[in-house]
């Protein structure tokens, strides 16, 4: 007789999907929470670098589109947080706890959202490269063994296709603009490239990422994702007449693999693990302002509706 863990893994290997209320090994649940919580919080934290540019967007259409894009990201955060909350309910943890975790450093978010976005071109390049990278990762997760995650990702990827077009449209406009616009674009690409090399994680995956492969929560390793990103974006960036800030970047003619300069792994790791990036503090302060600063309003809503139901009325 196989034990329940082996039987579970067998089923997953046959392509069976797992639902929220199904029995699952603790390890599987913990890995899912780790992955989906981090993914959701990253979507929420991703709103902060871009929102700085909404009020300064250079046309009405750009302002509307950037608003809508950031709104989608918050929406993705909301949908993913809901999944992580459902998984965490067995530990008695819900939205309040999961949102607190980021303020207290218990959940990480993507390296890119700890960095500065000092020009309008950064908003465009975030849409172009960061969303581009996120789409590659998310497309890989569409086949995740955890069905609620895979279902939600279908929706998320569909919305990301608008983000992709928007980011490219912003970048294309700058690339066909005047010298100042082109220079702004080049500087932004140079700023974001090393961060994108870190974005997919270390060349050799850590133990929990490997276990996520084992449980088919994810299906491709870090290096494979990074290679696909480079392969897709290098020709596009070069076609725009922009330079990639890596003089060693080249494609091995026999294997087709890209050779690239390693990002500063230690520095980026410290940024992510210790919330130690140039903008980590400022962005967390905004999150705290909303979550802690306005917790009174969430509690007021609860108070009002419980009063109402005590009095037998409808709101």
């Amino acid at each position: 007789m196989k034990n329940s863990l082996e039987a579970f893994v067998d089923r997953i290997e046959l392509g069976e999907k797992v639902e929220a209320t199904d029995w699952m090994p603790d390890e599987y649940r913990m890995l899912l929470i780790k992955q989906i919580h981090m993914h959701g919080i990253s979507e929420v934290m991703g709103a902060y670098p871009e929102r700085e540019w909404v009020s300064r967007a250079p046309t009405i259409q750009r302002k509307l589109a950037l608003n809508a894009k950031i709104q989608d990201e918050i929406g993705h955060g909301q949908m993913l947080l809901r999944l992580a909350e459902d998984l965490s309910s067995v530990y008695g943890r819900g939205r309040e706890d999961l949102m607190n975790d980021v303020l207290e450093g218990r959940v990480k978010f993507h390296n890119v959202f700890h960095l500065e976005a000092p020009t309008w071109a950064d908003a465009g390049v975030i849409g172009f490269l960061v969303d581009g990278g996120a789409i590659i990762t998310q497309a890989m997760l569409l086949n995740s063994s955890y069905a609620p995650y895979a279902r939600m990702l279908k929706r998320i990827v569909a919305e990301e296709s608008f983000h992709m077009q928007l980011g490219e449209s912003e970048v294309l406009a700058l690339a066909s603009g005047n010298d100042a616009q082109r220079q702004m674009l080049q500087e932004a690409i140079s700023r974001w490239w090393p961060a994108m090399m870190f974005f997919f994680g270390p060349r050799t995956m850590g133990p929990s990422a490997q276990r996520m492969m084992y449980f088919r929560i994810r299906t491709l390793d870090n290096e494979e994702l990074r290679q696909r990103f480079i392969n897709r974006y290098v020709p596009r960036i070069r076609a725009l007449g922009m330079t990639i800030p890596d003089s060693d970047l080249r494609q091995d003619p026999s294997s087709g693999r890209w050779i690239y300069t390693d990002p500063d792994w230690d520095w980026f790791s410290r940024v992510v693990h210790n919330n130690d990036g140039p903008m980590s503090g400022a962005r967390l302060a905004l999150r705290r302002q909303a979550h802690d600063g306005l917790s009174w309003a969430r509690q007021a809503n609860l108070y009002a509706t419980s009063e109402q139901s005590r009095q037998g009325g409808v709101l």
Partner: protein
Amino acid sequence: MKHPTTIQITALKSLILAMADDEWMMGDRGATWLALTPDLEEDLAMSSISQDEIGHAALLYTLLEELGEPGADTMVYERGPENWHHAVIAQHPTHSWAEWVVRRYCYEVFDDIRRKALARIPYPPLIASLKKMDAEESYHLLHFRSLMSMLARGGPLSRSYVDTAILADWPLLADLFEWGGRDEAWVLWDAGQLAPSAMRSAFDLVVQRDLIAWELEWPGPVRVADRAARHHDNSKTLPELLQHMREVRHIALAGNW
């Protein structure tokens, strides 16, 4: 209004411009709440509302363009501060959630009254635009009413924030009801509802009823603004806002963005 007179066109423009500028400012200020409201679900609702307002402003600027004014982007990115005609409250920065909810609730009540009054002007492009706006605006009014109702009944702390916010916002409401057109214009259109005094009393009626239902203190009728109101938002924050808003575009004013 097949062949509007010059007086009517001038009056029409000043009404539409005031509304467009109000919507723009509310939308632009509203967007600063992105990712900063009490919860993720509310972020989504608020962001849609802000996008709606910006969209309505763009729609109204396009109506003005048809009446001979410059295009929407020019109106937003190149107009001097002295030529904006929003009500002071629309541009006033706010950092308090309670104040924002109170302000938006008041604005939505006012805007509802204004749209109904404007719909009496027999100018088909305006009527068509108002129709487009109505579906979205009725959601705004509903949502801010719900938020007000819950904050008002949300316990002593929440209640005290709302009370303070009402007192802070009340003196700022006056010039919402004014407009730049000549008083005779609404007589020509048989639209007496457009008279500032008529809009003000319609507003007072609704708000008084709501506040009493929520057991909030009604601070009394909104004060009457002087007739130069809406012509000049003299606040220091307007030029600051416009400069900030235009910072990127001015890198290449004629450029492609």
